[in-house]
């Protein structure tokens, strides 16, 4: 014997009108069984579109906001917070401008000019904070042993490159940037946390030899 509740529900549902659906699509699939279901292409199409959009948005978001050009002073640019900058070793970071051969009169002018240290990073030129390297002292001319000998200068350069060779910076993934899922506190050093250490020692540079 049917339950009273069930009977009431059944009577109400029998009165329901037919619900519209993709009748033509269903009939086409009944006629041609090989015809794929809408789901078969709708789902991959949706996933594919979402993936393409995700990659596109991620690519756009991942673009650095500053560009270093030849005309832009490097020191005015802070490194992009999302990029990992490798601070090279002392030997690599010594900036030696090729073919710098200057007369004695030009030396004071050179010494007073602002030093713009350029560090070579993984893929492009990056600037260090201005405090990283002290201005180079005035090179002193070395007395010639013989009048025909080439003019020589010597200078002591104090480098303040930190001992740490690689400073991993906070790098958010594209997905984390998109969905703000990167909730874990990042304890790694960031540029804001970076402080120029005190002088770690003195390095005597090779003298620049002037040949006539």
């Amino acid at each position, binding site marked *: 014997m*049917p*339950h*009273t*509740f*069930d009977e*009431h*529900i*059944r009577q*109400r*549902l029998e*009165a*329901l009108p*037919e*619900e*519209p*659906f*993709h*009748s033509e*699509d*269903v*009939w086409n*699939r*009944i*006629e041609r*069984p090989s015809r794929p*279901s*809408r*789901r078969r292409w*709708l789902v991959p199409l949706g996933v594919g579109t979402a993936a393409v959009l995700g990659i596109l948005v991620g690519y756009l978001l991942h673009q650095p906001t500053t560009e270093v050009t030849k005309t832009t002073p490097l020191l005015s640019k802070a490194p992009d917070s999302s990029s990992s900058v490798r601070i090279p070793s002392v030997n690599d970071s010594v900036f030696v401008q090729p073919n710098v051969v200057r007369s004695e009169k030009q030396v004071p002018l050179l010494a007073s000019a602002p030093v713009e240290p350029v560090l070579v990073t993984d893929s492009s030129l990056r600037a260090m904070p201005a405090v990283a390297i002290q201005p180079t002292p005035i090179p002193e001319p070395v007395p010639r042993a013989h009048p025909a000998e080439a003019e020589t200068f010597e200078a002591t350069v104090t480098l303040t490159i930190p001992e740490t060779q690689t400073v991993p910076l906070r790098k958010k993934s594209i997905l984390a940037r998109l969905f703000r899922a990167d909730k874990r506190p990042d304890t790694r050093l960031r540029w804001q946390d970076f402080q120029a250490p005190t002088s770690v020692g003195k390095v005597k540079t090779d003298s620049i030899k002037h040949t006539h």
Partner: protein
Amino acid sequence: MTLSALLDRCRAQDAKAQRLLYERYAGRLFRVAQRYMKDRMEAEDRLVSTFQKIFVHLKKMEYKDEASTWLWMKRILVNECLMELRRSANFTMVPEQEAAEQSFDYNIIDEIAAETIHTLIAELPIGYRTVFNLVALEGYSHAEVAEQLQISEGTSKSQLNKARQLLQKKLQTLGYAAHIR
């Protein structure tokens, strides 16, 4: 055209007659499929496989009357839905104690739209929904349900009672809201 004549033409592989039969029953069958499958596209998939089977097995079907033809087609559809549910869902339901009957005002059912009742059934958990559809709406016995879903009769009974309780609770909430309005 009478249904008997239409079925004869369908048996003779008349494409137009098959289309007519489809248009006559597809809407109602889709409603039934939606009660089981919930997802519209899954319900459409079951409709496709049901009509393919109907056209294949029509030769063996003996026509009695319109009601029995409808029940025959509905039975094929329900079997198709159950096959899919068994394939995709876990029917290893744990037997629960039979729930005690609770008092329920049946007038509430008349106050709520049939479409809403249909939605409430579709929103039931899959086990409750399937057993409720089979026993309460299709008239299957608990023994048949137990065999179809490979569960015990006790489980079928408890699932049905739980389904009724949950549905009554939802209907009462809606009916109470309707009274306030």
